[in-house]
């Protein structure tokens, strides 16, 4: 593997982690959606680069799905849904930005320590990719637990899933990657349709999950 191959892959994966951090401190839904679209765009570029250097043309399909579905279709749909359902455009957070960012840094450090130590036998590219991927996954989880808003939780889940795709494409020669990314897209589509179909706005008056919590524990 040439030096430049490694560097570009490294750069793209690192950018993905950085954009995950950007998502953490957005306080408006629209800007969060834009940042997510950027996340998906960088993922598409990263997957396409992996397809090129691994000489694995089927990965271009995954890159295409990331580009068309995740970077364009989903953000546009969500955008229109926010308008149509009249969802609050501000994001209510459970904990403050400062704490979230600190926790995020801790998680990234954790994933570096764990993955780099565990994968020391693997080739350097896969090693770094997996470490970055775990960081993206953990940051996505962090976002899901620190937000009360259903739409931003969904975005947290989608960026978590981007981390998984990064891991799957970084694992050289992994079979079924395309199938798995399709399966995941179906899952995401269901979630997004779910927001609409379940008419969370209509049923719960708000997409703020705190309003849903009355059901936690026992009914009545």
């Amino acid at each position, binding site marked *: 593997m040439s030096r430049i191959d490694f560097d570009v892959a490294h750069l793209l994966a690192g950018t993905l982690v950085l954009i995950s951090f950007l998502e953490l401190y957005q306080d408006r839904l629209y800007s969060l959606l834009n940042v997510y679209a950027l996340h998906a765009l960088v993922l598409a570029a990263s997957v396409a680069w992996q397809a090129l250097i691994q000489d694995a043309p089927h990965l271009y399909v995954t890159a295409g799905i990331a580009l068309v579905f995740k970077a364009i279709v989903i953000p546009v749909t969500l955008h229109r849904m926010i308008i149509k359902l009249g969802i609050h455009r501000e994001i209510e957070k459970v904990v403050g930005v400062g704490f979230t960012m600190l926790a995020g840094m801790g998680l990234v450090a954790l994933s570096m320590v764990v993955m780099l130590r*565990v994968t020391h036998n693997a080739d350097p590219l896969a090693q770094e990719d997996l470490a970055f991927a775990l960081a993206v*996954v953990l940051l996505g989880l962090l976002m899901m637990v620190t937000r009360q808003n259903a739409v931003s939780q969904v975005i947290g889940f989608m960026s978590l899933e981007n981390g998984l795709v990064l891991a799957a494409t970084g694992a050289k020669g992994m*079979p079924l990657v395309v199938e798995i990314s399709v399966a995941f897209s179906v899952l995401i589509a269901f979630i997004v349709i779910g927001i609409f179909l*379940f008419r969370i706005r209509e049923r719960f008056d708000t997409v703020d999950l705190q309003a849903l919590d009355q059901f936690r524990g026992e009914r009545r």
Partner: protein
Amino acid sequence: MRVDALTGVLLIPAIAAALLAVLPGYRMTARLNVVATTATLLCAVSLFFRRPPTGSYLLVDDLNVTFIVLTTFVGFTTSVFSASYIAHELETGRLTPSSVRFYHAMYQVLMFAMNLALIANNIGLMWVAIEMATLTTVLMVGIYRTHEALEAAWKYFILGSVGIALALFGTILIYMAARPAVGEGLDAMVWTVLVKRAGGFDPALLNLAFVFLLLGYGTKVGLAPLHAWLPDAHAEGPTPISAVLSGLLLNVALYALLRFKMLLAVNAGALAPGPLMVTLGLISLVFAAFMLYRRRDIKRMFAYSSIEHMGIITFAFGMGGPIANFAGLLHMTMHSLTKSAIFFAVGHVTQVKGTQRIADIGGLTETHPALGWGLILGVVAIAGLPPLGIFMSEFLVVSSTFARAPALAIILVFGLLVGLAGLFLRINSIAFGEPRGPSAKAKASYVPMFAHLAIVFAAGIYMPPALVVWFQNVAGLLG
């Protein structure tokens, strides 16, 4: 493609799902649903006698045949129960004809997904199948479209998706561990290849992968503290789905975990997965046993009882060894049969009483003797009283634990007793005393419920030697 029993197990539900999605008329589609599950069951049983060759995608061995037959059997009886349950829901207008069509199609898709997860030889394919099963059950949990149902479905959706995502990360790590030893490409995800070569994998990667898989699939097993979705999903979905969730889907997720546990067992340097499973199992058992006390919703109560029993089963498999594995398998089978029988009874009870609140249900043995006594028998069985089947499996778990780790056995017995008392406290007011709530006659199908209970009863008194030998053989496979 050659048509054999294996393709039958997959193809019949798939075709039935497509047909049921378009055919109108409740009576015919309910019958078609039963016919399809019967045919699937026959195909599954025939796998006992003729094994198709192992491919790189599909695999049939002694372990998964046991699961497949159990799954298709409970799938079949539940479809019989479902026919009468759904008829009542249509009458009361809780479901519309179009949502019934959707329900039947999803039922078959769920059967397809569970069978696929069980016979998959490829860990990626297994993941896709479990994801599909999750999605279909989410859709069915939300089918009533009430506030509570939607909220339960959403909660299940988000927690289930996170579990599924973590499981995929674990699957990728397994591939990474296998790649240096097996080489790139399809073989590095084929379970039969992996288990042969796992001795040469990097133990650190395998360990990490197992932690992710345990958290991911453990969410789907309903192990505490990852269980939050389970009581809501059981309480708000249609009762046939509660029966299938408790009786089957939890088993399927546990089966996935067992496959990976076998993988780790081959590698000498990897951590022993047993203690992790033992810990999670015990936590689930004790936690759920205490949660039984303050339940006011009858379906939620039995959902917690499912968490309790999945805890016992995970504990037994975590202990490992021929006797504990045997007990775990037996307990899993008995729990599936008993819990689905209980949900069959509970389904009809909530329909005649028009409520799920325990406080509004009373004196069942007077107003509805068959349902009341069926429910009591089910609870006696699930609480683990002799001479029923669960007593035997729990006795085996406890006695084998006493021999090896007495301290753990004390916690185990404590949890079991707490759970037993909790169940009896509630069932007393449900089944006896002053009749409460409407006492209209139930249009129920008692056959599935009493068939399950009869099997559990018979197994408690006499286990056919052939069955014992079979379970011993499978327990040996599990290591």
